[in-house]
């Protein structure tokens, strides 16, 4: 559960409790993973959850009365499409404890990138009167539970195109190329494209098998991952305006690069990394290999 400083009273942790999201495939439920590596736009998501709401405790802590109309809603946001929408809305009012069954179906065509599911208890409509500091405006968020899910994980974190490099300006014998936008505020899904040379059949096969790679595929993917990470880090450090403190939109390439650096080099400033790269580029390249744990899985 996440908390924000809100201009009204909110219920405590004991009043609303969510279970873990379950992914339903062919009628069978599985614990929702952190990422779905083989997801694409044609795959819709069927998800279930259960939320326990003690309305008496909610009323006691917020100053609302039993006639207040509340809703438990699931709101999704997808960075790949930049869209947000409501997946389910369940009205709640009265007294006592309630267990709400959430059952949502998200169309794959609206999704992509990082999917965020916010389950929220909200005041469904505005109230003219109420106790001091109790919520008044319709839509006021009383409680939130957030879960994220990477759609397309492992190797294909961003769009991949298999193309004959002969038809491009890229060296014909190279295996892959990461296209990165210079505009770091551009949405990540539109700003990144991994091109794989169709002439390099073993590499193409490795990417095609990324969801369930064979041992040989793992070797190719590990080499590609290390090189792609290095390319992205170099891209970030080459931009003089790039910094951990730079403000980029949540779904932007700049934010993705900030996250990558924080994951690979936690507690190191961008300035420090820039210096290491300038002073000893060879050693820095090797440090990136270590940071991504190259060939560890292979």
């Amino acid at each position, binding site marked *: 559960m996440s908390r924000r400083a809100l201009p009204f009273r909110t219920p405590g942790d004991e009043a609303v409790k969510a279970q873990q999201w379950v992914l339903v495939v062919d009628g069978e439920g599985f614990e929702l993973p952190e990422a779905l590596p083989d997801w694409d736009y044609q795959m819709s998501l069927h998800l279930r959850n259960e939320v326990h709401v003690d309305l008496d405790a909610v009323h006691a802590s917020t100053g609302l009365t039993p006639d207040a109309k509340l809703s438990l809603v699931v709101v999704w946001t*997808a960075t790949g499409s930049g869209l947000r929408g409501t997946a389910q809305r369940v009205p709640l009012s009265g007294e006592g404890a309630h267990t709400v069954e959430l059952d949502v179906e998200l169309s794959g065509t609206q999704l992509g990138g990082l999917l965020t599911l916010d389950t929220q208890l909200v005041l469904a409509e505005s109230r003219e009167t109420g106790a001091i500091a109790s919520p008044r405006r319709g839509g006021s968020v009383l409680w939130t539970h957030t879960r994220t899910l990477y759609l397309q994980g492992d190797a294909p974190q961003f769009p991949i195109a298999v193309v004959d490099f002969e038809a491009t300006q890229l060296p014909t014998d190279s295996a892959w190329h990461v296209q990165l936008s210079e505009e770091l505020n551009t949405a990540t899904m539109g700003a990144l494209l991994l091109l794989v040379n169709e002439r390099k059949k073993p590499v193409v096969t490795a990417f095609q098998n990324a969801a369930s790679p064979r041992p040989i595929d793992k070797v190719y993917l590990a080499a590609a991952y290390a090189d792609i990470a290095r390319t992205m880090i170099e891209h970030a450090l080459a931009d003089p305006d790039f910094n951990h403190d730079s403000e980029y939109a949540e779904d932007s390439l700049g934010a993705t690069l900030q996250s990558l650096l924080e994951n690979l080099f936690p507690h190191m400033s961008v300035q420090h990394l820039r210096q290491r790269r300038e002073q000893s580029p060879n050693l820095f390249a090797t440090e990136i290999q270590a940071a991504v744990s190259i060939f560890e899985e292979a």
Partner: protein
Amino acid sequence: MSRLYPRLLSWHAKSLYADYRELGLPELTARHDTTHLSAVFVATGGDRVGAPELAELRAKVVALATEAGYPGEPDQSARSRFDLALARMLHGEMGLVPAEAASGDVWAFLSLVLLPDVAYWRYPGPPRDRVQASDITRHVFGRLWWRAHLVHDPSEQDPHSALTILGEAAFDQIYARRRALGGSPYLVKAILRVWGGLDRGGANEREVLRDFLKRLLRLAPFMCFEAMEDRHLDAELSRAAHESVQAVQAKKQQEHTLAAV
């Protein structure tokens, strides 16, 4: 079934943009194509669009442009009519899914390979974001698809009828605040409903809209607009919109008073 469109890689887009700088419309027409050697498709997610379908799409866009005076210079009214008709057509017929439509390279292919003549007719001597799609909210075609997508309501007889409620500049104010407001078709449609029925009492439209959107941005951190049913959301938005009208009128009144002193 979603459709995958060819993507024009950014260095080719830059190169074509440079090549087209000095070209007139007839030369751009001669340069148009349904394929490009370096165009790529992403690996999964739908069926690839072929050359015959791209040719058909081009014919439809050219027909709409011709109705608006192409290749002659269009006036403001003709440009608006063209944009509205094109928004409906692109969104209704391309079969794009939002995640695919978020890619600038898809739109760069349309403006620099398939329809360079129409793109440069609509925006003569365009800045690069109009055709290279470095910012989709400004792309000659991409912004129209997204504008249509955000207002699309399949339950209406005309699913794109809300396109006419706000002018382009006004809609851009919402779309520019995409992260907080413009990413939610549900909220955008509610904003348009409320705006369409708002009595501005003579207050300047642009100023009222700007103030209205500022108020919504201030509410966004502790309110979930999508959580409310239509009528309750409309009531909250109407309240904010009326506060904006009053604020703009009060400001104008204050300016008059100061000017009189």
